[in-house]
């Protein structure tokens, strides 16, 4: 088999996996051309990652919720509500770390409340979280009624959504720590891939041919390094981007390598079989909604910090944006299928669309129409490639 043929077979076999990356590349190229390179500029890329942070974090949690065949419509209102509480606490000179811990704790409690209504009381997730969406939207309005927008004066808090990680002293124009982190990320990626491949070889499982493997490693390493290089030539890694990456990494490990993660996918794949296999479906449901609550709190903090204030309409439509991101990332409503990394990429696809369309000057009404069309296209693609894979 010659090289081109092998590449063709590989692409065809993994079209589902690679489809979204190809779509992302396509969107980025189009906008780069339309904006004469502005889209891919260091400043815009940095901006793009900051814009997508609070949705990406929600999309990661939403992936698990959809994997176990539920939905959470309350996350937007709850994120807005928790952001307002944070702002209020900070305004009353409450210290930063306790504030963040309180917000995280409240988020978990609210999530567990949803989980309890769904797993123990037996409400459909749609209804329980729709009620949450209304209740917390109302609570946010009540909370900001007297004050209107709550301005936050705490610089450390505001840095979460606007600041960058510090650099080690050097006399270049580049953010040196960012470059080092980029190199570490590349090394980590290659090492883990080589380890997986060797393992598979040991048990005679199917692996990529050596030349394909090397090509893939070079290609992906280049992309990873390019991203960090670009960021380094601007202000470096933002706190938002760092938090998003760390959360995604933790959830990636949780879902792919822990018993809990395996149990979550088992419950999504076949709840009855999972229960008869000794998995406590109620506990899993509680955990998934509790984790959603925690991520909602983080999303609320990121957004509030980015705006440096809490507003009455904060968090509006976040739930739908994050659900859309997860679906674009290939999560299946039938349950049991979906990867958190792909949902992150899904969030990036949607954020790139918005960012690019804003740069080009597309009106907001047309933006909604295009985003809707992309969502349908992504899911149609997913369904088509799934049925052909069987």
């Amino acid at each position, binding site marked *: 088999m010659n090289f081109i043929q092998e590449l063709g077979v590989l692409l065809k076999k993994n079209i589902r996996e690679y489809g979204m990356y190809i779509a992302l590349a396509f969107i980025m190229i189009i906008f780069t051309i339309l904006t004469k390179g502005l889209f891919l500029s260091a400043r815009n890329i940095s901006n793009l990652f900051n814009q997508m942070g609070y949705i990406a974090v929600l999309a990661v949690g939403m992936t698990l919720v959809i994997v176990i065949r539920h939905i959470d419509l309350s996350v937007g209102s709850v994120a807005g509500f928790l952001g307002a509480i944070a702002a209020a606490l900070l305004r009353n000179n409450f210290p930063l770390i306790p504030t963040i811990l309180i917000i995280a704790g409240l988020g978990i409690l609210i999530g567990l409340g949803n989980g309890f209504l769904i797993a123990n009381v037996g409400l459909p997730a749609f209804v329980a979280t729709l009620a949450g969406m209304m209740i917390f939207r109302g609570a946010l309005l009540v909370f900001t009624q007297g004050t209107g927008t709550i301005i936050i004066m705490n610089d450390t808090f505001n840095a979460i959504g606007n600041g960058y990680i510090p650099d080690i002293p050097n006399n270049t124009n580049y953010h040196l720590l960012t470059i080092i982190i980029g190199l570490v990320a590349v090394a980590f990626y290659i090492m883990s891939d080589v380890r997986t491949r060797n393992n598979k070889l040991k048990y005679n499982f199917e692996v990529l041919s050596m030349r394909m493997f090397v090509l893939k490693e070079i290609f992906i390493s280049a992309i990873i390094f390019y991203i960090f290089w670009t960021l380094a030539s601007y202000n470096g890694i933002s706190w938002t981007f760092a938090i998003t990456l760390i959360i995604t990494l933790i959830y990636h490990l949780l879902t792919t390598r*822990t018993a809990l993660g395996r149990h979550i*996918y*088992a419950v999504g794949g*076949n709840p009855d079989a999972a229960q*008869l*296999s*000794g998995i406590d479906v109620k506990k899993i449901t509680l955990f998934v909604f509790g984790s959603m609550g925690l991520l909602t709190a983080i999303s609320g903090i990121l957004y509030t910090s980015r705006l440096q204030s809490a507003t009455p309409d904060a968090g509006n439509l976040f739930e739908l944006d994050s659900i859309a991101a997860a679906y674009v990332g290939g999560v299946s409503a039938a349950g049991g299928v979906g990867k958190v990394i792909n949902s992150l990429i899904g969030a990036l696809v949607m954020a790139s669309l918005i960012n690019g369309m804003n740069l080009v000057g597309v009106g907001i009404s047309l933006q909604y129409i295009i985003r809707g069309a992309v969502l349908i296209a992504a899911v149609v693609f997913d369904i088509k490639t799934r049925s052909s894979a069987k």
Partner: protein
Amino acid sequence: MSDYILEMKDITKDFPGVRALDKVNLKVRRGEIHCLVGENGSGKSTLMKILSGFYPHGDFEGEIIFEGKPQKFRSIHDSERVGIVTIYQELALIPELTVYENIFLGHEIKSGRLIDWNKTIAMAKQVLEKVKPDLDTSRKVKELGVGHQQIVEIAKALTKNVKLLILDEPTSSLNEGDSENLLKIIKDLKKQGITSILISHKLKEVVEVADSITILRDGKMVANLNKEDGFSENEIIKYMVGREIEDIYPKRKKREFGEKIFDLKNWKAYDKTLGRYVVKNANMYVKKGEIVGVAGLMGAGRTELALSLFGNPKNYAVEGEMYFDGKKFRFKHPGEAIKAGLAYLSEDRKGTGLILDFDVKTNITITGLRQLVRGFFINENEEIVLAEQFKDSLKIKTPSIEQKVLNLSGGNQQKVSIAKWLFVKPKLLILDEPTRGIDVGAKYEIYTLMNKLVEEDGMSIIMVSSELPEILGMSDRIYVVSGGRISGELSREEATQEKIMTMAVDY
């Protein structure tokens, strides 16, 4: 005497790998009650599905002659049009609608384009006059008991101008009073000239109401009995089971059993959604190293019994005492049962046994994943080694342990289902229909494995099965379940198919 309303001639139907019906002839005289009996899987339901057009013309060989005319039904709609109506075990009523809405569902009475509700209610009352005059037509079907729901189904059939009524085990979920009532209605309908085909496992009622009986066994018609010649339950049972046990059961050593490892006393399970006891006062025990067979007909409560023991996932209200491995237990969740050393192989491997989208490896380890966790993460190398061991020892035919179980054959899926329970090394393994729907070769392998587990590993096994030869071939001792209670216990030596069947139909 030769006025046949229905003749089915030389009906042959193949499913992949199995011949479900082999040149079956069924002749039904006009105005009689014709009973169709046979063991589970003997082909009764398939035959009726052919008659109703569920399996369309061309999907089988043979001929259907109804009222003197050859028929080629392409759908259920076609058969209903000539007057053949089937009432299935799972009723086709809409619970949230009223009696009269259900009776005319699908063929509503209209004036113009709108439904004429007054006329509908009047007609519903008129139809119910014939079967159950005091039933309130404005009640919702969900508020009625199963017995009355059956009557609504019959009333619905009557409005379709039914000539031949097929009833698939109508009394299996009814109590005695409701059953008698229903049988009386069928007899009344006979007086009004409606012919019925009744499928039933309850031989007592068969003998009572039938004018003639057709008996199927392994897809063949083995007997046709007429009332004039007299019926007896024993004769029917003999025809139903009359096959020799084939030599497909592996030889085994003379076994010695240990202490009682499992003991169940006055065990009851009440299903809150059905509103009745699914297990009534069961007493049973299992000794170490013993294979205990649980026989019974479908719907007798065997699976319900097994589930009520294994952590009660259906949330029955459970009473009674269970002793397992020297301790008293009442599991709240299957996870607790597994931890204590119990395992349950589901009767429905695709529906509740396996996660079809998972691969072989992950399906096997899902029951005891925590054993493989080192630190935070699953040790995937250990997992692979373990799964490979099961693949080899159970001879699971799969290209790789990373293959989705969806793509395996039934027999190999079943081996994966068994492997996932052997992984947790249970002390007592409950196998619910362990060889359902798999080929003879795989069956033999599973039987051999069962013998090895009790002989070499000291495991105990409860085997629930609908197949009598399997029960006789594998069990050291047999319990027979009927109508939710244990109706008999037989040793390996005294057990025969006839004795089991007699207990199984004893309600």
